[in-house]
Each structure stands twice: as C-alpha cells, then as structure tokens.
C-alpha cells in the first residue's frame, strides 16, 4: 500500500513541477510582451512576482527531499526525483532570466523602440515551446521527445546571432541607439540562456528515463 501512495506522490510531484513550468513560461511571455510595449508597470509586476516562483521552487525541493527520506526510492524512482531537483534549479534560473527581461522593460519604460521586435518574440515563443516539451517529456518519461529539443535550441541560437548582428548594425549606424541596443542584446542573451536551460531539462529527462548522462548542448 505504501508503494501505491508513493507512486501517487511521485506523480503529483511531477505534475506540480509541470505546473511550475507553466508559470515560468508565463513569466517569459509576459516579460517579452512588457518589453514590446515598453510597459514599465507590467515589468514591475513581473519582478514583484518572482518571489512566488522562488517559494514554489523551495517547496517542491522540500517535497523531493521528503520523498527521498520517507521512501528511500531506488532505480527509476530515485532518478526521477534526482532529475526533479535539477529541473527545479533550471526552472528557477529561467524565471530569473525572465525577470531580468522584465527589468529591461522597466528601464525602457515609455521609450520608443529602435526597431519593431520580431526575432526576440520569436525566440521567446521557441523558449516557451521548449519548456512545455521538456516537461511533457519528463512527466511522460519520453526520452526521445527530450532529445528532439536540441533541434529547437539550434534555432534559438541562430536567431540570437541574427538579432546580435542586426542590433550591432543599428548601433553602428546611429550611436544614439547604443543604450537601448545594448539592453535588447542582453534580452536576446537571456532568451538564449533560457533555451540552454531547457536542454538541461532534456538532459535531466534522459537521466531519469534511461539513467544516461549525456551533454545535449555542445
């Protein structure tokens, strides 16, 4: 009987982590939206909300340790919890990057953007998609789905180079754009990092499902 309840609890933990990932996606989406509209107030709300995610990460970490201590799981169950601890750290970092993007929106409050944002929202959309797929792979124990994330990370990396070149060109043409141009470069860099974190999630899934340690992002 205890086993049944343990597996229920493990399933609930995985679902809670998936729900947290939805919140992290939301932070990234709203942060980039605030940036697109240089909406400082929206940015501030996102910054203020970061505590909620941090607290939730801490709670779920506790839950992992509780399951480890009370049930002393082994094999696949042990790896699922080990992977959860990694995933929680990565989700927290991703949320932090999202908050940094929101801070940029606060700094650029009310400014006119030096160019309409096209590739940055595209990067953000890809990041959100990657987070969803990584968590689906985790909950479903689907290593193949996790491996497939690498292809999306490559697309994000290409977009990042594209944004970088484009912004550099704009700044070279008009030094007045340097302040905002640099801020936008940082935003692109944050998104690129978020995508890297999702490949960490994928690595955690490979470990959980197959017991395999493999760098997906080289």
């Amino acid at each position: 009987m205890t086993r049944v309840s343990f597996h229920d609890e493990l399933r609930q933990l995985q679902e809670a982590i998936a729900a947290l990932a939805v919140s992290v996606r939301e932070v990234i989406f709203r942060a980039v939206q605030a940036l697109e509209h240089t909406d400082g107030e929206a940015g501030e709300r996102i910054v203020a909300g970061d505590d909620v995610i941090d607290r939730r990460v801490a709670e779920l970490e506790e839950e992992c340790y509780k399951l480890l201590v009370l049930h002393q799981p082994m094999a696949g169950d042990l790896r699922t919890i080990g992977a959860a601890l990694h995933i929680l750290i990565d989700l927290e970092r991703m949320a932090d990057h999202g908050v940094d993007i929101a801070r940029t929106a606060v700094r650029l409050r009310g400014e006119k953007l030096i160019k309409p944002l096209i590739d940055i929202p595209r990067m953000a959309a890809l990041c959100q998609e990657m987070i969803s797929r990584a968590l689906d792979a985790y909950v479903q124990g689907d290593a193949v789905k996790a491996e497939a994330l690498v292809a999306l990370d490559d697309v994000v990396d290409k977009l990042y180079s594209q944004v970088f070149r484009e912004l550099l060109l704009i700044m070279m043409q008009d030094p007045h754009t340097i302040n905002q141009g640099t801020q936008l470069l940082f935003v692109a860099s944050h998104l690129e990092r978020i995508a890297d974190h999702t490949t960490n999630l994928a690595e955690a899934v490979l470990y959980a499902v197959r017991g395999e340690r493999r760098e997906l992002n080289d």
Partner: protein
Amino acid sequence: MSSAVQEPADAPAVIRSRGFHLYYGAVGALKGIDLDVPARRILAIVGPSGCGKSTFLRALNRMHDRVPNVRMEGTITFDGQDIYSPTVDVVDLRRRVGMVFQKPVAFPMNVYDNVAYGPRLHGLMRGRAQLDALVEQSLRQGGVWDEVKDGLRRPAASLSGGQLQRLAIARALAVSPEVILLDEPTSAIDPIGTARIEETLQRLAGDYTIVLVTHNLQQAARISDRTAFFLNGELVEEGPTETLFHRPRDPRTDEYLTGRYGGGGSR
C-alpha cells in the same frame, strides 16, 4: 554465461555456479544460474519471496543434501573444485563455507562454549590458552566482544537478538572459514542491532568472502559490493551494487526496485 545482465567483478571468483538448476520434485526452483562470487567482497542476493535466493545460498554449502526429492544439475565450484563431487568432504566444505541463519540460534551452553564448540569439534585447537585466544579473536571479529567479555560464562540464551546474531557470526568465524553465507541475518533484529551486524560484515569483507541473502534492499545497497537480483528462479541481473540500485539495466530489476513488480516487492 546465461542471458542475465552481468558486469565483470574486480576480484577473482572463489565460487562459480554454472548452469545450476535445482528442482523440488518436478518444480524448478533454480533455472540455470551462472554466477560468480568474488573473493573478499560482499555479494548480496535480493529478490521477491520464492525467487530462489535462499535455495541458491543453501546450495553453496550443500544444505539440500538431505532434503528429499531435491535434484540438481549443473556445477558449483569452490576454489576450482566441484562441491557436489563425491570426493568432497561435506563437513570440511561446511567449515570452509560457513552459514549464519535468519534466526540466531544459541547452543544451550555459555557464550564461551558456543564459540569454542566448532574448533573443539574440528580439533583445531591445542590447549586452553590457544582456545581462549581464538574465542576472543572470533568474538572481536564478530563485533560482540566488548558486550560479552565480562560474561563469557553466562548462558548464551541471555543475550539480545542482535548480540546473539553476532555470536552466531563469531561462532562461524571460529572455525576459520573462507566464505560466510548469511540468510537474512537481520530480519529479526532491531535497527541498532542491524547496524552493528552490518558494520561487522563490512569489517569482515576484507578477509572473508560474504554472500548475503536479504529482503532488505536498503541493507544490500548499504553494505554489499555487488548485488544479484533473482526472479522466479532465474538470475536476472548482477553487477556493482551502485549500478544495480541506481541504473539497473534489466527492466524487471527496475520494476522490482521501484515496487512495481507484481506487488511482491518488500521494503
């Protein structure tokens, strides 16, 4: 070697089982076991009730010899010699391959005589001083000396379960065995007593080869160097303990360790 997932050990094998089958009447209890027991290591054998782990352990010192209707095929060698060969002296085999049982049994005599019984029987000792020294050494190795040294003449039955089990280990050690077989030695012992026995076994592993049958998975994980997983009379997987409990390669092992196998897994 059979189809079981196995990884080579880092120590030479003292006992080798090859294609070993054991039948109780028409029922196959062990089905073609190919397993090496590495020297001076702890090998744990785990698996659900009825998987054949105790049957296999008992086969290692011929405890099935007097059980009616038991039939065996294949070979088990100890130090290169087939233990089921008619030329083998079973008494000597059991001295070299000792057994400690689940329920610690005290001979109806005092602590000292319990340990001295085997050496006296085998005529291993000459003189009182030598026997005294052997009894002390065995009790020390068994990790129970400090607790019994002031009451060596007390009846062994007055000891606690955990002390009695360590006395049983000391008694097995007193006849200078090379291999010690233990069949669920802590299942009737409280956690502190269990911890003492585990410490004792780990200490002994440097000098003796230990085979431990246990249904306590955590115990196997804590103290063994290698673990073998038996299921329905077959060896499913054997390898370094860390590997087996962390990333087993056979899905049946994973199902058992995570308690998903047929509901029979015990923790």
